[in-house]
Each structure stands twice: as C-alpha cells, then as structure tokens.
C-alpha cells in the first residue's frame, strides 16, 4: 500500500521549501507546503478506503535498520484501527491548519522557514504514529520535539521566544530520559522493540500486584508521556510554548504533538493493563492535571494562555480516560479535542491577527461587531469543549467520565467539577473578547477567507464530530465498557451549562463581580493568577541549584581549576624550566667549547674508571 508515501510527502515538501524556498515566490512555497500535506491526507484516505475494516493490521517492512547480534530492528510501518484514527486527525487537521497559516503568516518574515518546519513536523508526527516498533516511534517522538523547539523559537530575535523554546526542549528531555529507560527495560525483558512481539509476550504474563518489571516499565513510559503531553509535573513548558506563531500552537501544542503521550500510553495498553498500579498513576496524574490546569485557566488574561492551560487540562482528561481503562474514550477525546482546540487556537489567532498582535483579553471586548465569522466559529468550539449536549466534546468527555465513575465515583465528581471550570474559563474568554464594549485602541477587522474557511470546517467538526463513534471503531482493540448511565451524562452536561451561565453572569450581566471576587479571595486569587508559583518553585528547587552547582563545581571547580589548571600548569612549568636552561645558551663560543671539553673529560673518566672492557 506504500505507507511510506504518507510521511515522505511532507518530508519532500520540507526539503524543497527548506533548500530552495528562500528564493521562491510565496505562491510556490504555498503550493509545496500545502500540496504535500494535502497529498499525504489524500493518500491516507486512499489507503484506509482500500484497507477496509482493518481487522488485521496493515504492516509493511521496508529494510533492516539495525542488525547486531540478537538485536534486529526493522524500519516497519503498520496501520491498525488506532493508527488509522491518528492518521486522519494528523493529516486532516494538519491540512486545515496549513491552509489557515497561509493567511496568518502572510506578513511575517521567514515565510519559507515556517512552512518547511511545519512540513518537517508532519513528517515526524506521521512517523511516530505509523511506526510499529518503539525505536522508530522514538525517532518520530524526538523529531516532533525538535520541530516544536524550532517553531516555538520561530521569532528567534525575541528573547522570550528562544527562552520558551529552550524550556520546552529541556523539560522534554526529562520525559525522554524516562522514555529511553523504559525502552531499555522493554528490550531487556522482551528482547525486542517490535510492538507485536512485545505485546504478545506481555499478554501472557500475569497481572502484577506490586511494583514489578511491567509496572516499572509503564511508570518510565509514563514519565515520557508526561513530558510530551504536558502533565504534572512536567507541564510547565506548554503555556510558555505559546510564544510560537498561533498555527503552531494549534497544530503542535494542541491538536497533534501533545497527544503523542496519550497515544503512546494507549499504544502500550497491553503493558499498562498488566500493571494496575501504573494505571492508577496515569489516572491520578491525569485527574490532578485536569483540575489544576483548569483553575489556572480561569485567571489568565492572555487569550492564548487561557487556551494553553485548557489544553493541559484536556490532556489530563485523556490521561484520566486511559488510566481508568477507557482507552478508546481517550482516543475519542484526542480526536474531538483536536477539532475544538485547534479551532479555539485558530480563532484566537484570527482575533490576534485582526487586532494586529493584541493578545490581552482586557484589551478586547465587543469584537462581535467586527468579526462575526470568528465569533461564531469560536462559539462552536466553546460549546464543544464545555460538553454542551450533542456537540463533540459532550460525547468524548462523558465517555471518559462514565468510565471514571465505574472506577471510583469521586474521580467522576472531580472530573465533573473540572468540566464546569472548563466551561467557565472558555466562555469567560469568549465573553471578554466578543461582548461588551471594545476596550482597546486598534482597528479590528475580520480575517480573509483563507483563514475563516478552515475555521468553518473545524466548527462543523466540533459540533458534529462526536457522531463519529470512535469507541465502536476501536472495539476490537479495546473492549467497550458497560452502557452509559444517563444520569451521569446529564449531570456533567448540566454542570458544564452551569459553568457557561456563571461565566455569563460574571462577565456580561455583572462585569464588576469578578473584581469583587478577586479582592475577596485575595491571596488565593493571586496564587492562582501566578500559576501557583510553580515556575518560581522549579526555579528555586531545580534550576537555580543546577545552574549554581554547575557554575561552582563544573565550571569553576572542574573546568577552570582542574582541566584548565592542568594545561596551564604544564605550560607554566615548561617555561620555568626553559628560563633556567636557556642561560646555557650564552652565545660565547668559548663557553660552549669549555662545556664540550668538560663533557669529554667526564666521558673519558667514566669509560676509564668504569672499565671499558
């Protein structure tokens, strides 16, 4: 089926634009960048249509990548039902965002650079989901991290952008360290990286009660997933990653790359099912992240930061779903989240574009009059993420929450509370941006069709994408849970609507209320506003000791004192010895002759006394 074409097409786009794009007109760059992604999307569709029901995974072996003793690692791609969903999300949403980016990046410098990085990202992301062994997946995993770094630091002349890029890269290294260790353990335990072999071997193992080898593997993989998918305690890089252009935030930091951690956990579900303790960790981290990030999202004023914390929170939901065993619900939420979160970011991008770079919600307001399409499409995304009945978020979120209820009712209630917070902060942002009076001093204008077009498509998907029943499609891989409990479903939907109502009261009906609440809560409000001071805490606990220790021990102690010291001492001692020895070079011939005579006499004496024979 030539699966290799799917990632190779964007890679070709990357090469062409990266090498020749600088000298080419924009139309050429557009054609290459968007064309390659669209072709890739078309090839995914063609492949999936031809493959039919995918009862058996569609596997292709290209070449042996590494062959050394017992190690045999191939360059293998495979498509099963899970991969099919991911492929459609990545190429489909990716195509829309690429098209949107034409309009958004119109006036930006480094146009070809932007699109070549975006294409490179598509290549690595598709490699990640297509790979059928852990090592090849890791290649894609690291590659998307690289592209994320490059695109966060896209405005590399700005200090905050490069800092944010470094932060994302370094925090991800911590996660990748865990992922690598997990892979090593997998190889030690199963002697292979191949998904099929590893999972077959793991399926025959008994469920672990304590902290055994499988649990260790899963916890290490979870560290990797936490880094990539921005979960506690490694979530700190994602809000800063908003320094990149908005299409990047939509594509990489909302719709696709950050879901890679969830995908990896779901892909490794055989391992996780056999390690119940690790599952509890996944669920716990997911739940904590979902709630914690939602509270921060309520207080932010940068429209992209609101949605960034919202992404962290929604990723927490996905982890929660995977952790309580509802893997298919987690993947469903990946899909719906890709729709509405990409839309939220693209809509935010349209607002920012229309306001010439303004991101502060306090400088917006009343934009409804100026950008109706953006307002309506963002409204669609907002109702979807709030779990309004029969929108996409309603289905996927309730699938997760129902599964959570079966695990333990309190998890469900925390999840429902978070859903209320979600609805509140999203509609807070919407009301602050689009209703009331305009508070800024720019001249807002609607975005061109090339930007609003993708918004409209995504709006339709956000509203109706929930009718794509992913759990049924994935049923052969992940047996479905018991039936849905209508009481639970409507409770969570009701809480979501309560959140919307409260946001309306706070920001439309009585705009003076939020200020009163903030001053009434005082310290607590400031704590949340400052993101619980986690960045400061990390700075204090990790960054500063690390930097200080490196400076004192590694630099001044090791590098300057020991290494440089040794080299300098060798040089200085040589000069000292030379300074003494050079005195023998007097320039007086007679003194040289005297030395020769002296030496000869000494030699003769030695030979004579020692006895030459």
């Amino acid at each position, binding site marked *: 089926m030539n699966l290799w074409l799917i990632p190779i097409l964007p890679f070709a786009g990357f090469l062409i634009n990266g090498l020749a794009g600088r000298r080419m007109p924009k139309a050429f760059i557009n054609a290459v960048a968007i064309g390659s992604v669209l072709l890739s999307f078309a090839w995914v569709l063609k492949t999936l249509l031809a493959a039919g029901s995918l009862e058996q995974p569609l596997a292709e072996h290209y070449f042996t990548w590494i062959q050394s003793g017992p190690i045999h690692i191939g360059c293998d791609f495979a498509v099963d039902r899970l991969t099919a969903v991911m492929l459609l999300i990545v190429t489909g949403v990716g195509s829309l965002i690429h098209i949107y980016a034409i309009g958004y990046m119109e006036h930006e410098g480094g146009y070809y650079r932007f699109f070549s990085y975006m294409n490179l990202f598509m290549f690595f992301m598709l490699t990640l989901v297509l790979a059928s062994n852990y090592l090849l997946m890791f290649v894609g995993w690291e590659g998307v991290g690289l592209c994320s770094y490059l695109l966060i630091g896209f405005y590399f002349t700005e200090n905050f952008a490069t800092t944010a890029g470094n932060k994302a890269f370094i925090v991800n290294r911590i996660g990748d360290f865990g992922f690598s260790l997990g892979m090593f353990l997998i190889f030690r335990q199963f002697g292979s990286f191949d998904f099929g072999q590893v999972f077959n071997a793991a399926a025959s193992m008994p469920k672990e009660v304590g902290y055994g080898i499988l649990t260790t593997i899963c916890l290490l993989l979870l560290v990797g997933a936490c880094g990539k998918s921005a979960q506690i305690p490694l979530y700190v890089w994602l809000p800063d990653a908003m320094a990149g252009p908005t299409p990047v935030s939509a594509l990489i930091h909302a719709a696709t790359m950050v879901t890679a951690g969830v995908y990896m956990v779901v892909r490794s579900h055989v391992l996780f099912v056999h390690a119940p303790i690790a599952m509890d960790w996944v669920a716990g981290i997911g739940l904590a992240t979902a709630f914690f990030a939602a509270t921060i999202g309520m207080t932010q004023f940068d429209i992209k930061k609101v949605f960034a914390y919202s992404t962290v929170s929604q990723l927490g939901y996905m982890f929660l779903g995977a952790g309580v065993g509802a893997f298919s619900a987690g993947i469903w939420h990946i899909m719906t989240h890709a729709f509405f979160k990409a839309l939220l970011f693209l809509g935010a991008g349209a607002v920012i574009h229309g306001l010439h770079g303004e991101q502060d919600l306090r400088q917006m307001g009343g934009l409804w009059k100026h950008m109706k399409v953006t307002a309506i499409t963002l409204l669609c995304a907002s109702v979807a993420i709030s779990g309004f009945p029969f929108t996409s978020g309603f289905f996927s979120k309730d699938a997760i929450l129902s599964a959570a209820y079966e695990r333990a009712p309190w998890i469900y209630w925390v999840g429902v509370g978070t859903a209320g917070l979600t609805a509140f902060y999203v509609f807070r942002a919407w009301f602050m941006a689009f209703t009331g009076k305009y508070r800024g001093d720019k001249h807002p204008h609607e975005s061109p069709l090339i930007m609003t077009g993708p918004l409209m498509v995504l709006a339709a998907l956000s509203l109706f994408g929930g009718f794509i029943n992913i759990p049924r499609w994935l049923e052969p891989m992940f047996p479905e849970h018991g039936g849905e409990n209508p009481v639970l479903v409507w409770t969570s939907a009701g809480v979501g609507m309560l959140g919307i109502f409260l946001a309306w009261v706070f920001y439309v009906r009585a705009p003076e209320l939020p200020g009163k609440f903030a001053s009434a809560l005082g310290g607590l409000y400031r704590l949340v506003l400052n993101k619980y001071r986690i960045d400061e805490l990390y700075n204090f606990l990790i960054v500063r000791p690390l930097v200080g220790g490196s400076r004192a021990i590694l630099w001044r102690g090791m590098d300057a004192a020991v290494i440089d010291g040794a080299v300098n001492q060798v040089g200085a001692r040589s000069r000292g010895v030379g300074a003494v020895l*050079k*005195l023998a070079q007097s*320039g*007086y*011939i*007679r003194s040289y*002759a005297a030395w020769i*005579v002296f030496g000869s006499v000494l030699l003769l004496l030695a030979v004579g006394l020692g006895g030459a024979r």
Partner: protein
Amino acid sequence: MAPAHAVPLNWYLILSAILFCLGIAGFLYRRSIITVFMSIELMLNAVNLTFITFSYHWKQVDGHIFSFFVMVVAAAEAAVGLAIILTIFKNRKSLEIDEISSMKY
C-alpha cells in the same frame, strides 16, 4: 711487530695528546678568531698523528685513508671558516671572539 730500535708507540701518542691539549688550550684561551681557528687545525692534526701511528703500528692502511679524509674536511672547513671570518671582519671591524655572541636566547 715494530722493530726494537724504533720509537715506542707511547711517545707518538703522548706527543699527539700534547698537541691536542695545546689545541684545546688555544681554543679556550685565545681571543682572536684566527688563533682559535688555528687551534682547531692543531687538534685535527693531533688526531691525524694518532691515526697514522696506529696505522703504522698495525700495518694497516685504514688509518692513512682516514687521515686523508680529515685533511679534506680540514681544507673545506678552512675555506668556509676563512670566508666567515672575512665577512665578520668586514661587518664588525673586529675579530674578538667574545664580541660575536649574538646567537643566543
């Protein structure tokens, strides 16, 4: 073996050693480059005498050949050395060997 009435071997060697030491002394104590140069010749010829002595004593021709080599080298050295001395005198108007000490550290 050497004939009984012949001059003993040691005498030649002692003479040669005396000549060589005179050469060394001249090299070390005289200041004029010309004299130093002559002292070198003296040392070379002292060595030549030793070669000839042993050649005669052992009735072998090697020593003769070697002394010819030394003479050739001495002649070549004299040519080069005198040329250098001339040049030095032209440039410095002096043949004081201690004044020619610029080749140092």
